[in-house]
């Protein structure tokens, strides 16, 4: 088992896999250093920075190989800042623990990608193609409360439908024929301004989904399906996408407080005390997911309430510094 694994990890695809992992790890640290050094708050800049650890590992290894074929030589290895093979070759009692650990991590990450991302995306795509929600939904213009909220928006909205449902529901489908769906209970719960802000947020998702860059980044991320760092950074970029859409919505409505209020009403209901016995029975994973979701919503509300200074220079300077440092350091990371 060890010999074929060793041969694979020393082959071109194997070197790509291991170096992509370490390159994204370094890029992730560089990104974090930049975020702290410049105290970056703008979600658009933050998102660009989070994308570096996803894009860089895909292109750097072939690029370095192309520009310097001597990069894998013995002499280059001796001068490297970090050489992953050193760790992979460490042997204790006939076992290579680092190699085994790394393979295990890659395997688990691949399964997470398969079950948490790829299968849900495919299922969602298939279901949305044969979805009949639109057939049973009313157009926004037919619902006076929604019409009142929508008419003040300064953009031509995509298709917006109101679905008969008692729950709090608002989402958008993206792509060429993107649409916004909201449940009939929402106009009863939210004020006109809050409803306008919530719909504007979903419209922002539809507008941004037409941006080919994000699709391209997802394709690159899919190439790194085994890479836990790419998985983590992609999720952070997705969380930042929500904030980018919040800001886009605010630019349409000019009302930060209304969107914060809508988020609070929709996603942060007052928690009822849970009896001890019932709490023990709940699944930990579910609790963690709920807690993480709550933190994310609270972070969005906090950002909407505090706002941030627009940073025209930092918009290109910080991502450029992160890319330059990532390339320079990773050149010496094998």
């Amino acid at each position, binding site marked *: 088992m060890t010999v074929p694994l060793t041969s694979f990890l020393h082959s071109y695809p194997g070197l790509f896999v291991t170096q992509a992992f370490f390159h994204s790890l370094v890029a992730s640290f560089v990104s974090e*250093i*930049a975020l702290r050094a*410049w105290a970056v708050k703008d979600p658009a800049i933050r998102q660009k920075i989070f994308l570096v650890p996803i894009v860089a590992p895909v292109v750097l290894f072939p690029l370095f190989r192309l520009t310097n074929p001597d990069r*894998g030589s*013995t002499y280059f290895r001796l001068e490297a*800042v970090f050489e992953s093979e050193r760790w992979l*070759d460490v042997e204790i009692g006939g076992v290579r623990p680092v190699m085994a650990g790394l393979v295990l991590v890659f395997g688990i990450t691949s399964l997470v990608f398969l079950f948490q991302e790829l299968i849900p995306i495919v299922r969602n795509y298939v279901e949305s193609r044969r979805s009949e929600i639109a057939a049973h939904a009313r157009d926004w213009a037919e619902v006076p409360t929604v019409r009142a909220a929508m008419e003040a928006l300064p953009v031509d909205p995509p298709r917006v439908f109101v679905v008969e449902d008692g729950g709090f529901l608002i989402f958008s489908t993206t792509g060429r024929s993107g649409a916004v769906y909201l449940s009939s209970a929402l106009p009863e719960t939210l004020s006109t301004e809050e409803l306008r802000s919530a719909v504007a947020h979903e419209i922002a998702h539809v507008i941004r989904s037409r941006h080919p860059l994000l699709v391209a980044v997802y394709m690159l991320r899919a190439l790194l399906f085994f890479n836990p760092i790419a998985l983590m950074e992609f999720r952070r970029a997705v969380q930042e996408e929500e904030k980018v859409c919040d800001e886009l919505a605010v630019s349409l409505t000019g009302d930060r407080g209304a969107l914060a209020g809508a988020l609070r009403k929709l996603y942060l209901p007052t928690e009822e005390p849970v009896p001890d016995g019932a709490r023990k029975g709940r699944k930990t994973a579910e609790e963690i997911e709920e807690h993480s979701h709550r933190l994310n919503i609270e972070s969005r509300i906090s950002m909407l309430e505090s706002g941030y200074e627009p940073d025209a220079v*930092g918009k290109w300077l910080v991502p450029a510094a992160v890319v330059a*440092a990532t390339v320079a*350091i990773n050149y010496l990371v094998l």
Partner: protein
Amino acid sequence: MRNKALGFLAFAVGLAVLVIALKTLNWLPLVAQKDLLRRYGDFEEMRSELGIRQLLVPSYFPEDFRWPPTGIIAQGKPYPAVILEFGRSGEGKTREIGLVIFQATADDFSPGGTLEISRTLEKMAYPLKGRDAVLEVGTGPGGESCASISWREKEFRVTVLARSTPFEVIKVAESMLR
């Protein structure tokens, strides 16, 4: 603007810490495991550390080269490999590496680096004291004459590579086989 400059300073300090951490992580396996690729200061030290007994060494050297090697690089894992570098010695010499002898159990092992035949002019089979050797003559990256000879000696592939004539390279190789 002042914040930006301070940001740059903090970023530079952060990167310096990251590089130091990477270098430390790169050094740690060498402490834990003795047979990983590294430079050695002494031939005997390398032999005893790695336990490689079957190494060939030359008794003949072209002019300007002499024993001991100016550099020794070796590893025991993932396969045994030893590189002996010889720089030009004597007053007024540049001390550049002009002769390299490498021995490894892997057939495709090549150390790379600045001493290499970048353009092959001739490649032929050569009988070297009963061994089937391959003699290669060409030029290096700077257009200088280079030659190498390579053969299998039990489980090791031995290669002698020099910025010199093929005759000198053959003489060095022959001196390794007594």
